[in-house]
């Protein structure tokens, strides 16, 4: 409880600081506009000069970063439990490559023009194709209604490679939208808006609650399907439910922000090393950590080359890659002893 309280507090502080950091704000590069701390607070709470900017650009962006981080971390935690493998991530069953293809098709059809009406078609396209890809992998990975995680993993790899080739091909074809599509593939929170925040709030709240409630069953599943069965956790429905919820959260996150890698892989892994594998604690802790991590990664992404910004996926991969290798090395050293 103490850990979760601490993480919640840290999340709140992170979000608050992140809102104040940026091209416009009391902290940050100071370009194009440096304002004082009190001006910033004033702008947030009163209808003054920058009120609109804070409420319609900065705040939804920070919230979206938190929600996407939470969705990916929670989805990754569940996937790692189902696959009994800490190398699994939310995209292991093809969600990201499916969504990428959807976004590419939408871009190719010139649908991005419609993007500013409400939800926009590209996210919807990406969401649907992401789920379709996951469903295809699921069908390929199950025999007579039984999910075989090894087959599922390999099907995921194969489908992702196939869809990845199609995405590359569409990048090649759609030269004009090339930059846009690559930006999407690297992941960015620049298009954040309130409607995204609202939808994702519902998805993340429902998704994390379900994963949390089945936490004890996930613990049992990690000791093998037979043990899970013998502890009363019915493994088949459990795997299906978790795959569904995880795919849904991952697809929703990817649809709005593109493919942000490493969050869903590293956050659960790191949190587990810190507090253990008990899912009743791990699920909320990893979810909160994912939110904190992505808020800071995005803050870095939008300030580091200010007034320009980097795709946040580059930041997460830059921080995550070496850290992940470090964990991997440490893990394999531990094996020798």
């Amino acid at each position, binding site marked *: 409880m103490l850990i979760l309280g601490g993480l919640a507090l840290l999340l709140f502080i992170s979000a608050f600081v992140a809102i104040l950091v940026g091209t416009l704000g009391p902290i940050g590069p100071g370009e194009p506009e440096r304002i004082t701390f009190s001006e910033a607070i004033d702008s947030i709470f009163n209808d003054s000069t920058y009120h609109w900017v804070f409420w319609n650009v900065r705040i939804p962006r920070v919230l979206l970063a938190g929600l996407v981080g939470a969705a990916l971390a929670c989805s990754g935690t569940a996937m790692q439990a189902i696959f*009994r493998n*800490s190398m699994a991530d939310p995209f292991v069953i093809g969600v990201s490559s499916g969504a990428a293809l959807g976004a590419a098709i939408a871009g190719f059809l010139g649908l991005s023009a419609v993007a500013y009406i409400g939800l926009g078609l590209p996210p919807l396209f990406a969401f649907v194709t992401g789920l379709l890809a996951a469903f295809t992998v699921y069908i390929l990975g199950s025999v007579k209604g039984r999910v075989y995680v090894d087959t599922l993993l390999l099907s995921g790899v194969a489908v992702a490679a196939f869809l990845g080739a199609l995405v590359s091909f569409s990048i090649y074809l759609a030269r004009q939208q090339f930059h846009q599509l690559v930006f999407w593939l690297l992941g960015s929170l620049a298009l954040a808006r309130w409607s995204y925040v609202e939808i994702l709030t519902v998805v993340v709240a429902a998704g994390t609650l379900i994963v949390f*409630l*089945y936490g*004890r*069953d996930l*613990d*049992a599943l*990690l*000791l*093998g399907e*037979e*043990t899970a*069965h*013998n*502890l*009363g*956790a*019915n493994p088949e429905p459990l795997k299906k439910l978790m795959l569904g919820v995880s795919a849904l959260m991952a697809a929703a996150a990817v649809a709005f922000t593109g493919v942000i890698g490493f969050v869903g892989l590293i956050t659960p892994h790191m949190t*587990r*090393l810190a507090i*253990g*594998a*008990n899912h*009743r604690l791990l699920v909320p802790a990893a979810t909160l950590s994912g939110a904190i991590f992505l808020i800071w990664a995005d803050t870095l992404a939008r300030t580091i080359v200010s007034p320009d910004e980097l795709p946040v996926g580059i930041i997460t991969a830059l921080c995550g890659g070496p850290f992940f290798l470090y964990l991997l090395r440490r893990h394999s050293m531990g094996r020798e002893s």
Partner: protein
Amino acid sequence: MRLEVKNLSFAFSDKPVLKDVNLEASDGEFLGLMGPNGSGKTTLLRCITNFLSGWDGNILVDKKPIGGYTPRALARVFAEVPQISSTDFPFTAHDIVMMGRIPHIGSMLDGETRKDKDIVRKAMERTNTLQFAGRYFSELSGGERQRVIIARALAQQPKILLLDEPTVYLDISGQFEMMDLIRGLNREQHITTVTVLHDINMAARYCDRIALLSDGRLEAVGPPEEVLTPETIQNVYGLDVSVRKDPFTHAVYVMPRAARVPLRRHGTRVHILCGGGTGGPLMKALIENGFSVTAGVLNVLDSDYENAADLRVPVVAEAPFSQIGPEAHDENLRMVEDSEVVIVLPFPVGPGNFKNLEAAKYAIEKGKKVFIVRAAGGVAVDFVDGKAESFINGLASSGAVEVGNLGQVLTAISRIGGRVSG
């Protein structure tokens, strides 16, 4: 609780694994499940827990079919201990034992209660695992892990405990420790226990009854001394064994019969003068190399007497703890006459069996080929004040060949050759 398996059949795809198995474990019984690899033991356990579906027949717990239980209710009846449990994920020993409470925690919204924690602590105390409750499961030794899994099974408060070769990856002291623990729990808490075991002697020692599976069928079921007969074991495992009684526990124990049947019988007949267990290895080696073997006067209950009986070697016997009498000595001499080679082993010589050395002298006089195997230190175990030693030296100087070990004996007598029959 009483477990009944009725007419159980199961097939993987088209390959039948269990064929019409009928078995029951009465309340509080300790039942061993045995059989060769692939005979269907693990499959039977998995059908009983309903982990495998699609079997035919009936499985009843206290007369109620297991199909009538929800997965969680079934997990309150059965606890299972697999051969080996491992996870790369950082669960502590305490986490693992707490998982035993999963089927008892009413709602997914509930946390673990005081009662759950008490039960877990007691289970860990009983299995002697409390001292490493906070350590990671993956860092524990095989024996410690298996005890943690037993603790988890206890925390499950099962009516029936199922174990699949719980000792298979443990060293010998770990095996006994584990079996003592399981047997203790079975007796104290009256948990009906069904365990797959590979070690026949372990099963004989601990089980009330043993069920022997062979190729998916139940071959025999009953108390160890009824099931573990040389005939049944020959049928099921295709292994020639002798069955003896443990002198301390009176449990039966089984050991593979010493000799394999040779491909080709060698005609040469060899008579062995031995005692106190010195003759066993030579008898086995000679039989395997196709010689016909007889053995010199042995007291009933002497370990060489038992060796000879196991190998079906004709032997001149004398009553236990008695001196070699005239009848036995004469018979021994007749056997010497009938053989081509006589071998004297470094048996302990006392007044009671000194006549065996005299038989060797008789063999030399009769022109038999006589070999003397010298004891490792060069001196025989002599309880007749050096008389044996000097007698043996006398044999050596009157034509007996001295050799250092059994290998040399075999090489030497193989050169003699002989009739090749049947």
